């Protein structure tokens, strides 16, 4: 096997006294896209946060040395009373204007000079999510981890985020781990699928995993694409 960017072996995570992840092993190569699927409460977000070092765990998580990780959390919100502009948000990362504009453009935001002056708290959920993804991408991480990037966003917003992500994958060969509780178009672009419900249910190529029988097993009922 080539040089894996991430290798996880016998991972166990407990939160409180509850086992949230049991005996999980998988790996990821550079420029691969891994989609983690599973119903709500399956431990997907916990897995992502564990990979990021935010939860204690047993087992092994080995990242490639000096890797630069970008993370798009699912709970990012800007309170109404904080007058933070998009530009100021990017300035937290000490990046220059062309870099900001480029990152916003990746996420399909045009007329970005004007957009940079906007207040974060007045953006729609879809816009806010795109800004966050652009912010994570702006200093060019080796890998990005996205936690339900399409959650609670309307269909139009989803489409834009989805299209932007696909373009990004095609242009930059970005290594990606994406958590999703639904099976959409996203799955078809994946190199690997990890279907999770505390334990690994399935792990492999999308065409092998996404079958009606397997989906019924993952989600506990009949589901179709």
């Amino acid at each position, binding site marked *: 096997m080539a040089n894996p960017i991430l290798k996880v072996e016998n991972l166990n995570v407990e939160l409180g006294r509850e086992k949230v992840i049991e005996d999980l092993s998988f790996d990821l190569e550079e420029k691969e896209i891994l989609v983690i699927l599973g119903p709500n409460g399956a431990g997907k977000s916990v897995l992502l946060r564990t990979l990021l070092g935010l939860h204690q765990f047993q087992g092994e998580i080995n990242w490639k040395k000096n890797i630069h990780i*970008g*993370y798009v959390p699912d709970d990012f*919100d800007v309170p109404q009373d*904080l*007058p933070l502009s998009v*530009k100021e948000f990017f300035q*937290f*990362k000490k990046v220059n204007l062309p870099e900001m504009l480029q990152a916003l453009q990746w996420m399909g935001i045009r007329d970005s000079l004007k957009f940079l002056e906007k207040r974060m708290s007045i953006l729609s959920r879809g816009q806010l999510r795109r800004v966050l993804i652009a912010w994570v991408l702006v200093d060019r991480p080796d890998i990005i981890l996205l936690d339900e990037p399409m959650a609670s966003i309307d269909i139009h917003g989803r489409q834009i985020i989805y299209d932007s992500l696909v373009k990004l994958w095609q242009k930059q060969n970005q290594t990606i781990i994406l958590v999703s509780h639904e099976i959409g178009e996203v799955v078809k672009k994946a190199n690997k699928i990890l279907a999770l419900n505390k334990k690994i249910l399935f792990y492999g190529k999308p065409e092998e995993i996404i079958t009606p029988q397997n989906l019924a097993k993952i989600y506990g009922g009949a589901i179709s694409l």
Partner: protein
Amino acid sequence: MEAQFLYSLITGIFIGGVAGYLSSLMITKRMALVGDCLGHVALPGVALALIYGFNVSLGAIPVLILGIVLIWLFEMRTKLPMEALTGVVFTTSVAIAFLFLPEEKVSAALIGDISQVGFWDTLFSVIFCIFTFLVLRKIFSKIILTNLSENLAKVEHIKVERYNFIFLACIAIVVALGVKVTGSLLMGALVITPAAAARNFASNLSQYSYGALLIGVISCVLGILLFKVFALPAGPFVILTASLIFLISLIFKKI
């Protein structure tokens, strides 16, 4: 006499500025009333300083450190909400102070007395204000990002606990400095009202934080000038000026 007034004014300008700047972070972190409580916690130290005639900020600092450590320890031991424990500590502190605070010093302790600051007091305040401002400016974006998403901040290699601790230390220093101007009772307003007013003018973060700084400075300058004119304590004038600016800011409120 004129030098004395100048010292008061300089002390007020610097303390008002740094307290105003801090207030924008306090409101963002939903900690507005912490400054108020810490002002009360400082009271025994302020009382000692007034009795023995040394700088009230120097008296306030050790008591504030003790208070913060106690709140932190109680929180670890009991897991009770921080605000409840802060309530226990600050009322205890006020009660202790009133056991030995002489009656003629009550006013100075509660609403401040800036009329007696000397050269060294002023120099001490200015140095501490500049230092605290620079530290706050350095940690500002990290505190804001942590407030938006702690997990995101951690992934971006921000040492969240460390910055929270530094932030708390800055609050303690600003409160210790502020009790000189507005006293223990009114200190809270110096770290609430400037940002509350600036928020109504501001359309971005730097307008917000530097606007609050400016409002803190203006409140202190006008308050101290009014004290000069009316020969009443400066503390209440400073706070009322800030409140007035807040009322005016309502006209400019941006949604």
